[in-house]
Structure formats: structure tokens, C-alpha cells
């Protein structure tokens, strides 16, 4: 479903991604973790070309990401993304946030798009907020709207870029619950997160990155109990210490 082969990226002289190889099958859930600045966000942002890679190949759902705009558009239609800071459109109501892309990109009639939107708002358990503006919602609610917004495009793959990092602690659970439900339904997911509980219960395998490299790829039970590399052990000791 997603294949990265020898992917490199530089910011000027700085080598952010070094020889990344990763393969994700349909329905698999992958958790990516690692210290900040390790390139994990950059990697998943390459998958829908919010960032451009400079060497190697990225193939998503059978389409290779090249500078061809048509391919980029095609992939972005199939890949949903949830951001750390939600990035809802503040000038539109929740419902308009959800129906905008289906109407303008997928050319779905407004009525049908609104029905779909309400269906997904029910799923993230906030249908009563449909006519409010994002600024009137709590962080947890905003992030659930953001997830619903991505789902309204009926994506085959969902990317999550630290979806709970900007949330107050008491709101993390409501967002993770929605993500777990989504995972149970068989969505292909790549999640950059430090929520190790989520990784343990949901991930098919965990990818550990450091300094632009993939250091270790392992199923969660093995990753947490028996990490192979020193860098992984150090990282785990740091985040599990408290």
C-alpha cells in the first residue's frame, strides 16, 4: 500500500531523512516514534508530499510520487491527514469544514456531503457541534473534527502527525478512543506519537527513528520488552521513566 525505497531529504546542508525504507500493507497500523528532530514528521509528510523527497522512490496505492501534479493530487485524495495543531478552517463552521473538500475536490452534491459529514460527526461523538465554529470547541473536540474531516474524503490511508501532543491531558483519551475505533475497522494508519499505550494496543509494528534514520522496526511487544539497539533503549528509558 505504501512503499518508501531509499528515501533521502535535505534541508539545505542538513540531511533530515537518510535512506528510509519502509513498507506498509493494507490495513496495517504503524506507530512511528523517536526523539524530536529525528525526522518522523518529515517522513510522513513526504507520503502526501507536504514535503518533497529528493532521492529514492515513494509509491502510495500504486501511484509513484513524482513532481507530476496529477499524481500528487491523486494521492492526496486517497490519503487523509491529521495534524498536531488540528488546522481546522476557523472561518467555516464544523459542518462546512467537513463538506468543503468532498464538494470541491470530489464533486459530491452538497446534500450527500452533509449526510456523510453528519455520519462521521456521530462517529467522533460530536454531532451537536455541527454548526459551531472551530474556535468555540475544546482542543479534543477540534481534533476529533479534524479526524472526521479527513474521513469525509473516504481515504484509504490515514496519517496522524502527533495528534495528541497539543492537547490538554484530560482530552487525550477522547481522541485516542476515536483512533482506536478507526484502527479496529481496518483503516491503514501511520501514526507519529509518543502515546506508548496506544502503540502497545494498536500497532502492528513500531518504527523507531533517530537522526533521520530508521533505527528499529519491531512488533510492539518485542519493541518494548526487548529493544535491539542502544538508542531505542535510551529513548524508551527516557519516555517511560516518569
Amino acid at each position, binding site marked *: 500500500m505504501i512503499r518508501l525505497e531509499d528515501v533521502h531529504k535535505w534541508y539545505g546542508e542538513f540531511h533530515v531523512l537518510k535512506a528510509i525504507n519502509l513498507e506498509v500493507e493494507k490495513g496495517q497500523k504503524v506507530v512511528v516514534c523517536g526523539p524530536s528532530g529525528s525526522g518522523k514528521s518529515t517522513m510522513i509528510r513526504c507520503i502526501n508530499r507536504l514535503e518533497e523527497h529528493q532521492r529514492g522512490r515513494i509509491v502510495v496505492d500504486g501511484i509513484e510520487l513524482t513532481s507530476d501534479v496529477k499524481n500528487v493530487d491523486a494521492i492526496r485524495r486517497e490519503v487523509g491527514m491529521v*495534524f498536531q495543531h488540528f*488546522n481546522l478552517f476557523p472561518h467555516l463552521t464544523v459542518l462546512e469544514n467537513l463538506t468543503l473538500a468532498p464538494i470541491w475536490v470530489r464533486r459530491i452534491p452538497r446534500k450527500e456531503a452533509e449526510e456523510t459529514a453528519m455520519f462521521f460527526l456521530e462517529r467522533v461523538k460530536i454531532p451537536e457541534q455541527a454548526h459551531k465554529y472551530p474556535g468555540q470547541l475544546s482542543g479534543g473536540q477540534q481534533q476529533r473534527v479534524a479526524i472526521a474531516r*479527513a474521513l469525509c474524503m473516504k481515504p484509504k490511508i490515514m496519517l496522524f502527525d502527533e495528534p495528541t501532543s497539543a492537547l490538554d491531558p484530560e482530552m487525550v483519551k477522547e481522541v485516542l478512543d476515536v483512533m482506536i475505533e478507526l484502527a479496529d475497522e481496518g483503516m491503514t494508519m501511520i501514526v507519529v506519537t509518543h502515546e506508548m499505550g496506544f502503540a502497545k494496543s494498536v500497532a502492528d509494528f513500531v518504527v523507531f527513528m533517530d537522526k533521520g534514520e530508521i533505527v528499529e522496526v519491531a512488533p510492539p511487544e518485542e519493541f518494548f520488552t526487548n529493544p535491539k539497539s542502544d538508542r531505542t533503549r535510551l529513548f524508551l528509558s527516557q519516555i517511560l521513566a516518569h
Partner: protein
Amino acid sequence: MATGEISAASLRPPVAERLGVVGWMRRNLFNSPFDSVLTVILALFLAWALVQLFEWAVLNAVWRAESKQECEAAFRGERGACWALLRARFGQYVYGLYPVEERWRIDLAFVLLIVAMAPLFLRIGINKLLYALGLILVYPILAYTLFLGGRFGLALVETSKWGGLFLTLVIAGVGITASLPLGILLALGRRSRLPVVKALSVAFIELVRGVPLVTVLFMASVMLPLFLPEGVTFDKLLRALVGVSLFSAAYMAEVVRGGLQAIPKGQYEAAAALGLGYWKMMGLIVLPQALRLVIPGIVNTFIGLFKDTSLVLIVGLYDLLGMAQLIIKDPQWLGLATETYLIAAAGFWIFCFGMSRYSMALERRLARGHRR
């Protein structure tokens, strides 16, 4: 009663002393002996000036007279304002040199505009954007045909006869409708990733902003004909319109660019991740937010443009201010410069103040939705 018996929750700040008019005056006007002296002196001066103005403009003013001589004769004692001038010259102020018997065409166009714009301000189920676009495309043609005539049995009225408030509104109206979309395109161009588009936008903006409007108008009217082949002439008014529009577009572009820069990168990314292309991203996500942010700047540019229309005097067009200067030279009313200019100033002020109030109302209405 002991103070301990008052519960903290029942305490309120003392109201009248600190928040009322008295409190405000004490803080701002009579804070020290020196402040108090200044306040009293200034208050006396203001009162004196206002009384003088009131006596001149209202008490001693003459409202009905056929000429300046009659005005002077009517003054009892002190000299007041001769507002009879406004009564006598109102037509010229509003319509310029437009023939009296054809003035109904301007009135008709004005009424048509108001009727046509009404749906934009009412809550009815139409696509307001499409309607506004249609209006912008159709109305100018209709109005131009009406004003100029020479067709459909209407007498021809050369643009050199257009003038007064009417001409001011034509130039400002065209300038405003043309400069906003042009300015938006230039602002987008300046932030474009395409080097040629970017270079052209930057060059245009910096070139036009670096030159006074008077120069632009002068060039358009004097230099342009030199470069055109023999026999090809553009209407003087058209040249002024193009000059004013391009000039304000350059300013508008910088105002809009300020708004574009205030939109967080996350908004672009979210739009891109949903598969929106460049124009949809700009049109649906970025511009609606950016323009809302810079409404004060946009209206500021509009107001500047409205007043700058008086510079068309330099190419021999008589707008509201231009008419005032013609009226001053009228032998019957010679020597009434103060009244003449005050009337023109009042004309400008009414429209500029109206725009300012409208923009404030618009900001409040738009802000109601998405308070952060």
C-alpha cells in the same frame, strides 16, 4: 459592624468614583494643578471657537439669495456664511457640466445601482458571489451607455462634460471595483513560486508605488498619445480611470499581502492535504481569512482612492473639488471660497465616513462567527 462579616464574594469594585464620568475626568483632565489649568484654557478656547463657528455657519448665515450681492445685503450686522451658494450651484456640484435636461440619466443609473445591489444586503437564498460578479460585469456597461448616450435615442454627452460628485463616484467606483481583484492577483503573484510571475508582480508594485499619482495621470494624458499611432486616441476619462485603478491596485496588493502573510502555514497544509489545488486553496481557505483580517487596510485604501480622484483635475477633468474651483470663478458668486470649499469637503467627508462606518459594521458582523 466589623468588616470581617462581609464575605469576599459580596465585594464589588466601587463604581461611580472610578468608572463614571466624574472618575474619568478626574483621572484624565484634572490630575494635577497644571492639568487643570490646561483643561480650563483649552475648554474656553474650544467654546469660543465653537460659538464663532456656530454664529458664522448658522446664526448669521443666509440661505436664500440669487447672488453674492443679495447675500451681502441680507447680512444683518456681522457677516455669516452664504449658503445660498449651495442652493444655486447644487446641480453643478453633483452633476458637473452634464446638460441639465439629461441629468435624469445619472439619477436613473444611481437608482438602478441601489435596486440591483439590494439583494446583496438582504438575507435571501441566492449565490451572492455569482450575483455580485454578474453585477460587476453588467452594470458598468449599462451605466456607461446611459451616461454617454449617442445610442438608443439618447443624446451624446461627451465625457469632458461629466463632472462633480457624479464624476468622483464614477472614478472611485471603477477604481474600487478594479483595484481590489487586481490587487489580490498582484499579491498572489508576489508570493508565487513561479519566478516570472513573481518578478512581474514585484516590478509592477514597486514601480507604481514609487511614483506619485499625479505623475501617473500626467503621463497617461500627455505621454501616452506620443506612443500611439497617429489618429488613435483614448478618451481622457478612460486614461484617468486606468491610471487610478492601476495605482490603487499596487497599494491594494501590499495590503492583501499583509493578510496573506498572517495566515498560518497549517492552513495551507490542511488545504493541500485535502487535495485542494492552488486556486481552490486560495479562494476557499486563504483569501476569505486574509481579506477579513485586512478590511481596515482595504477600506483605508478605498478612502484614499476616493479622495485622490480630485487629482484628475490635472488632466482637465472636473470632479467634486474641480467643480468647486470652477464655481469660485463664477462672477456672480466671486469671493466665497470658504463656503465653496467647505461644501466640497462635506461632500467628500460624507462618503468617506460612510465607507469607514460600513467597514466597521462589516468587521463586527464577520467577527461574530468565529471568535477564537
